[in-house]
């Protein structure tokens, strides 16, 4: 039964990684850049939600909605102010800028909210965990909702990119920015939309994560950000199903290493797995290269 309990915790943590990884993978897909500030958007989302519930007394779900709106706008602003002016320059300049934005957000948070950790109140406070198998198996509402949220987000996002005009345009821009312009697609708009979606989802991921792991401080987003980035690479960066699979596998590996091997080594094991996958399949699990035909 502990195996099953661990599996569910792993899936839940993995779902958080998967939702964050979507932001990395979509942004990478469309603008070929690694947005290292993405993890810190999660933290901002967490603080927004925290403030809305603690100081304004808002309902947790409503607070999450506010956090989503704020993060969506933040994502659009980051792209507009920090990354767009650098488009067309070397990828190194953009990468360093992204790291700069990451530290900027962390320090802004430090300035406003201080370094003291805040205790986040779970979105699902008051809901009872489910007991099964004669009390041996406990499933928390946090786990259930996180896993469910991930599934719903994946389905909606997949429908969005495969069925809607804006979604197809995003795929077209990802593949060939220049050719997309020749179709009349406004590339800037498409990229803004991608940042908006990724950042809005980061807020959801932040609230879900903090509901299970409630310690909120300015560096809260950094580690999950890196892990989710790893998940995106693991699954094949640029691929939406890849982000989902990468996230889930990573979450499970992490929880299992913690439970059966060593808590201290769990991160090392996660990254070792990434290295092994990349050695065997450099494009990640689902990453692919379409060979060009003449």
């Amino acid at each position, binding site marked *: 039964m502990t195996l099953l309990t661990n599996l569910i915790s792993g899936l839940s943590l993995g779902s958080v990684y998967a939702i964050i990884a979507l932001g990395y993978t979509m942004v990478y897909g469309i603008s070929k850049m690694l947005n290292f500030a993405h993890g810190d958007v999660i933290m901002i989302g967490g603080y927004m939600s925290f403030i809305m519930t603690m100081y304004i007394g808002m309902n947790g779900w409503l607070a999450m909605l506010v956090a989503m709106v704020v993060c969506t706008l933040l994502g659009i602003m980051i792209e507009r102010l920090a990354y767009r002016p650098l488009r067309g320059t070397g990828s190194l300049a953009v990468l360093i800028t992204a790291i700069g934005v990451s530290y900027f957000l962390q320090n802004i948070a430090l300035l406003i909210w201080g370094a003291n950790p805040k205790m986040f109140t779970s979105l699902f406070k008051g809901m009872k965990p489910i007991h099964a198998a004669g009390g041996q198996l406990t499933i928390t509402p946090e786990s259930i909702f996180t896993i469910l949220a991930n599934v719903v987000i994946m389905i909606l996002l997949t429908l969005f990119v495969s069925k809607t*005009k804006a979604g*197809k*345009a995003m*795929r*077209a821009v990802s*593949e*060939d920015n*220049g*050719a*997309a*312009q*020749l*179709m*009349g*697609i*406004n*590339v800037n708009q498409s990229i803004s939309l991608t940042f908006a979606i990724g950042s809005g989802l980061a807020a959801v991921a932040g609230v879900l994560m903090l509901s299970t792991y409630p310690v909120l401080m300015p560096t809260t987003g950094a580690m999950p950000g890196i892990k989710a980035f790893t998940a995106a690479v693991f699954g094949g960066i640029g691929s939406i199903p890849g982000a989902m699979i990468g996230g889930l596998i990573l979450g499970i590996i992490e929880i299992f290493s913690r439970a059966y091997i060593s808590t201290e080594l769990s991160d090392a094991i996660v990254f070792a797995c990434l290295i092994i996958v990349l050695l065997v399949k450099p494009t990640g699990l689902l990453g692919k290269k*379409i*060979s*060009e*035909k*003449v």
Partner: protein
Amino acid sequence: MMGTVLTVDNINVYYGAIHAIKGISLDVNRGEIVTLIGANGAGKSTTLHTISGLLRSKTGNIEFLESSISHVPAHKIVAMGISHVPEGRRIFQGLTVEENLQMGAFVTKKDRIAHNLEYVYEQFPRLKERTSQIAGTLSGGEQQMLAMGRALMSDPELLMLDEPSMGLAPILVDQIFDIIVNLNKAGTTILLVEQNAQMALSVADRAYVIETGRITLSGTGEELAKSEAVKKAYLGG
């Protein structure tokens, strides 16, 4: 029917320090097939890229249907009526054939899309057989057809084709050129860039020869096909 559709007036285009286009001027009249021929790297593709707004000229002006498009962003130029089939086709490999065509209709009014799709399938029946196939798995000839079909989805007044024959078997080249002539007869004005000068001159009303960023010769297709300089340099005789 007659009248100038496109006027390119003294454009100069740079890639960093490289002066790629040195004062090119040309015009295209309604209903014509105009071709730009010249060697690799002469500046033919760069000229098309500048017209469609992906590159900018430092000087001069580009006028399309009597309005200047020199400073119009690329994605708005399509809506004005210029469709550009880029070199190497550049279809969206991961999208299906139909999705590629939908992208071509990105700026097309909703009520025209179904009509245009039908027109494209009429011109390229092969595409109709493969609507839901992933475009990257098409053969080279089919990919060229898809790139042309995609460009036609926006109802272009002017269709710019960059090396449509590149990498295709001779029989397919003939087929593609037949289609170009048909499209032109159906009313589309065409600006054609080709390395296959013989083919290009055989269908063109007028032609320009570009050498290292300058226009060195121009005339009717027939005149240029007979010109000694062109024969020597581009027609292998």
